[in-house]
């Protein structure tokens, strides 16, 4: 079974449609959508509609911090964060039922040896960033606490494609994958991967990121696909959102 993992879509229809088509062409039979469907981008409603349709067809979906923020818009602070700027706008763009759908999403999804979480399995509701081996170790330990079967923890949130694994030493090691190459992840070890962002890559490259996990072969491919980021940027400008959100897409920042 080939599982496509997509996270941090951020209302980017162009990137999302490209990734879904690419995953389907590569033989994906199950989709897992790891949260942050909205925020930053121009088409929150279109994305939520697509996610609702896919969930009806059997896809798994979990909630991200931006989805939570769009449902419960934080009260304006004196210096609002970038996320907060778009949260209120996104809130207004979504229908009652779309918001209800997002708000009802679970924080984690377990399927056998697989644990899916938007940020860290260590207190998922606190949206901790997994930026280093320590953060990864905490998430992995919490996942094993949730279910002793957990072998694979896949998440998003950090907008980077990274793999954490156990070397010969005690601590986890960080591995930066080469895109589009299957990496064997044998099930007798435990693995944590951040699968990157579909709609807002931040590693200096514009291509959308997602991952494909071949569960029969136990191999994970970190995928990069070019998409029409200028169309996504144009949509952001047309929606009247700050230029910064449009400009960063081409630069991958």
């Amino acid at each position: 079974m080939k599982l496509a993992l997509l996270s941090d879509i951020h209302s980017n229809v162009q990137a999302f449609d490209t990734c879904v088509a690419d995953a389907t062409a590569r033989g994906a039979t199950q989709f897992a959508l790891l949260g942050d469907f909205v925020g930053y981008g121009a088409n929150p409603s279109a994305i939520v509609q697509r996610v609702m349709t896919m969930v009806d067809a059997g896809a798994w979906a979990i909630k991200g911090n931006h989805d939570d923020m769009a449902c419960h818009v934080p009260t304006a602070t004196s210096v609002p964060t970038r996320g907060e700027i778009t949260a209120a706008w996104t809130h207004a763009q979504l229908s009652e039922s779309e918001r209800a759908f997002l708000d009802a999403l679970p924080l984690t999804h377990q399927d056998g040896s697989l644990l899916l979480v938007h940020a860290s399995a260590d207190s998922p509701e606190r949206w901790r960033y997994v930026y280093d081996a320590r953060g990864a170790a905490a998430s992995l330990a919490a996942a094993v606490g949730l279910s002793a079967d957990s072998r694979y923890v896949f998440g998003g949130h950090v907008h980077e494609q990274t793999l954490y694994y156990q070397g010969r030493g005690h601590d986890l090691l960080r591995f930066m994958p080469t895109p589009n190459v299957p990496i064997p992840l044998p099930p007798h070890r435990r693995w944590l991967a951040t699968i990157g962002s579909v709609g807002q890559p931040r590693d200096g490259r514009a291509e959308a990121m997602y991952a494909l996990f071949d569960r029969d072969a136990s191999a994970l491919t970190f995928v990069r696909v070019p998409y029409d980021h200028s169309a996504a940027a144009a949509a952001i400008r047309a929606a009247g959102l700050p230029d910064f959100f449009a400009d960063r897409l081409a630069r991958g920042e």
Partner: protein
Amino acid sequence: MKLLEPGATLDGFVVDACIHSGGMAHIYSVHYATTATSGPSDPGFPMAMKVPRMTAGDGAENIVGFEVEQQILRSLKGSHVPRFVAAGDLTRVPYLVMEYVQAKQLQHWLDEARETRRPLDPATIARLGEAVARGVHSLHQQNVVHHDLKPANVLIRDDGSAVLLDFGLSYHGHFPDLLAEELRKAIGSPTWMAPEQVVGVRGDPRSDIFAIGVMLYELATGELPFGNPQTSGGLRQRLWMDPTPPRQHRPDLPPWMQEVILRCLAPEAAGRYASAAHLAGELANPEQIRVTERGTRSKGTSWRVHFKRWIKAVGMAYKPSPLPTVQIDEVPIVMVAVPFKGATDVTLYSLRAAAQRSLGSRAGARLACVTVISPSETSGTEAAKSEASVHTRYLELLRQWAQGIDTEKHQLSLHVLEAGDVAQALLDYARGNQVNVIVMGAATHGLALQRIVQTVPMRVAMDAPSTVILVKAELPFSALA
């Protein structure tokens, strides 16, 4: 795991015999238990099964090398590794089934020289070294660094080609390194280990070149350049120490051989051959090796130099390596086909300019200048047309053509090939020498006739294993005035 008896079956394989009992594993010859009608059919080559002595129950630690070998062998292609057949579940019955390669271990030549007390002749050493280097380069082209090359892990087939075994300590640039740990430790066999491996560097292709250097040293002299150190201090010696020049052990060894060996054994990776293909290219053409002081020196390095290097080596520490393919792509082998029949000066000028552009501004690329002559140009009876004199004449023409190419920055070699089929000769050379870029003339090799016959440039372009640059004649602007 305990020894398997002949006739025992494991996951559909029947054991024929135990063919090797090593410290870490048993190797058996096996065949499929099933008949052709059910289950997998015979792969068409003999198979060997490697079963580690350790099982998962003996502690995961010991089985990591086996896991690494399973992953890497599965991913490797080409004729320089045994073909992968099957792997057992590590948590249940770990094993690896692969092609059983019928060939001699490199160790065989060492043993023979020792037993007969007759040192190997330099041509044989060069031939063996070239074969190993070509095999090693094919690993590097697949992003793998072997990291445990030694005479027991290298097989030489009857046709002279090398097959590399035992990937338990190897590194694959696309996979997480299961042997790594936070505190970088030396991973490898002490006798053959490169200095950077000693400080924990993994994934530098030039570490394998060092190991080839140790093997060449042993083939040439019967001695080990750094002994077989048992302590970490002994192991660190190679970070600053030059070995005794091989000619001190064996004065009849030609200087070019010492030049090659000591260059492979340079303490800093940047001092070695930039890629194993470059090393192979040198060993294939010993008469063209540029011999420096390194090749002729007969005394060891002075203690002053060693002391300075020792100070420097104290600070040598772990650094991550770029992907192996990224490293070897920076030092390509460029082949230029130089025609002398019917080629104008303008053509020859343009070819040289294109070759220089392809070498790039960075040092380290290698240029192979090739010309193909017709067999009818040489004659077995006329002295003036003897093969040797015709070849010498063309080599001189190539040497003149290559003047102006910076041989300090780039290695250069000249080749006269005799063949009726020019395109085939160029393609064979490019394949055999792991060429990255082919530069050839468009017009002189008959591109204009393409509509009528399949011309040489088109045939080369279509079948080449590499990029092909077709050069059109173009005079420099200054010459037009």
